[in-house]
């Protein structure tokens, strides 16, 4: 982090005016940001809080959502996100490990694949929605289902998770692996005892990022998991995610503002809780592992 320049030094010199301009720009931007956050946050909290209750969280929506609650929707969302993570995590972990192994053998192929993943990460979510519709719903015959929605989301968060996991694995110095290989240790053992424990913070980070994106995603679910807001009986049932519910209430249901506020608040609160848990986990992890600064092994020979 850049040192904060002492106050005197900021105003010394013939660029006093320029410094002042920069200073004004900074504070002005902050003012705009603050104003906007207030505008954004206050209504949602104020109006939404009124609507939230335990009943709201447990009942299913009535009258297209104008009344009742979001119980069934929460369940559907949980299933969708659950399927998404359960699919994406092993796949991305496998790919990240693969990258690390192939790094030496075919570095140019890895660079190419990495670029492809970067492109994939930037593809708009609606395109993933279309893909999910064409592939999972129609080609694989899953129809509008929670399963299709979860799998589509998994495809969507895969590039990001691979990148995060790959970076956290790469942070483990190679010297440990040389030592392990020279002792004749198995690849599985190296992975479980050396790589994964060190990559755990990154792993949790990846999970959190994945969770966050999955909860917030709407466009990819519109055509894959469907619109039905009843209690889902199985993963093959159509189900509505919370974000889709907010969209529906806003655009298609006149008089649905109250529920929309409450649902939006529920969504925001869920994300806040996830973030807090993530930070707590990372904090605990950092306290457990002793200062590794004692052993500063370089990454390459």
């Amino acid at each position, binding site marked *: 982090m850049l040192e904060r320049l002492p106050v005197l030094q900021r105003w010394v010199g013939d660029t006093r005016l320029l410094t002042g301009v920069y200073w004004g720009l900074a504070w002005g931007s902050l003012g705009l940001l603050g104003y906007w956050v207030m505008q954004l946050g206050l209504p949602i909290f104020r109006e939404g809080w009124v609507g939230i209750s335990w009943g709201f969280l447990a009942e299913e929506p009535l009258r297209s959502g104008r009344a009742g609650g979001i119980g069934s929707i929460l369940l559907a969302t949980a299933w969708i996100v659950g399927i998404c993570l359960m699919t994406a995590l092993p796949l991305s972990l496998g790919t990240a490990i693969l990258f690390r192994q192939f790094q*030496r053998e075919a570095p140019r192929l890895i660079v190419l694949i990495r670029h492809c993943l970067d492109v994939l990460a930037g593809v708009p979510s609606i395109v993933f929605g279309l893909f999910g519709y064409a592939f999972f719903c129609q080609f694989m015959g899953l129809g509008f289902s929670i399963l299709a929605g979860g799998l589509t989301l998994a495809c969507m968060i895969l590039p990001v998770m691979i990148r995060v996991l790959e970076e956290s694995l790469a942070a483990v110095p190679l010297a*440990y692996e040389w*030592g392990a290989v020279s*002792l*004749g*240790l198995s690849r599985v053992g190296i992975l479980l005892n050396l790589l994964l424990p060190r990559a755990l913070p990154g792993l949790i980070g990846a999970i959190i990022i994945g969770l966050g994106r999955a909860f917030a995603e709407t466009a990819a679910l519109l055509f894959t998991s469907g619109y039905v807001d009843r209690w889902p009986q199985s993963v093959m049932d159509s189900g509505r995610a919370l974000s889709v519910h907010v969209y529906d209430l806003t655009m298609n249901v006149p008089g649905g503002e109250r529920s929309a506020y409450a649902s939006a608040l529920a969504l925001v609160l869920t994300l806040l809780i996830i973030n807090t848990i993530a930070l707590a986990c990372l904090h605990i992890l950092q306290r457990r592992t*002793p200062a590794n600064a004692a052993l500063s092994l370089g990454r390459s020979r």
Partner: protein
Amino acid sequence: MKNGAGADAYCRDGFCVLPSRSFLEVQKLSVWYGERQVLKEVHASFSACSIVALIGPSGCGKTTFLSTLNRLTDLYPSCRVTGSIRMGDLSILEPKLDVRRLRKRVGMVFQKPNPFPLSIYRNIAWPLSEHQRLRKDEIAYRVELALRDVGLWEEVKDRLHHSALQLSGGQQQRLCIARCIALEPEVILLDEPCSALDPLATETIEGLLQKLRSRYHLMVVTHNLAQARRLADEVAVFWVVEGCGRLIENGPTERIFLDPIEPRTRAYVSGLIG
């Protein structure tokens, strides 16, 4: 039992095995990294139960030579090794060789101490349990044995389950050596084991190596000529000839230092070049 210039017998764990003149035989060993040849036609034979010092200026392939002995060169896909290395009845460069078994018999200690970021106990216990099926008490026994062998036991017995990274540099290096000898190898390869350590730790390690020479065959790469002279029974001199590394001379320590054949060796050991 110390071996002199020529080994007649070598001893392990207190009893003598069949006499064997040359324990390790290397023939026409050449190593390429991609297009570049780093070692050219190394011929050597080393006798057992001794310390062999590999000396020579930087970049002449000493570490590469060491890496071929435990097939660590396999880790580099662009690396090509030709020739033959025989250790007893084992042909090391055989493609079908079980390298994991090989690496149990041939251990390696690196220049910068690299204990695993695990507890001291697990640093030794994990490789043990991977190679052999042992009961918990057997493992504990072997761990203690290894730590005693390197002289670490008294220093760490109260904190076996603390992280190995909290040890000093010298202690970490001794832990790495303990990790190797717990597997009961026949050969230990050491790549400049003391260069990252302070003089006091160096002294401790050298003492340890002296102690271990009766049980294992040690091959030590070192830049420190004085160290080579102190420790080694045999010396192998490497040099860069026409752009790639070659073994130009090897033999008993006394002869190499006092009456070398090669002029380059003479110049190197008297400090004139290198």
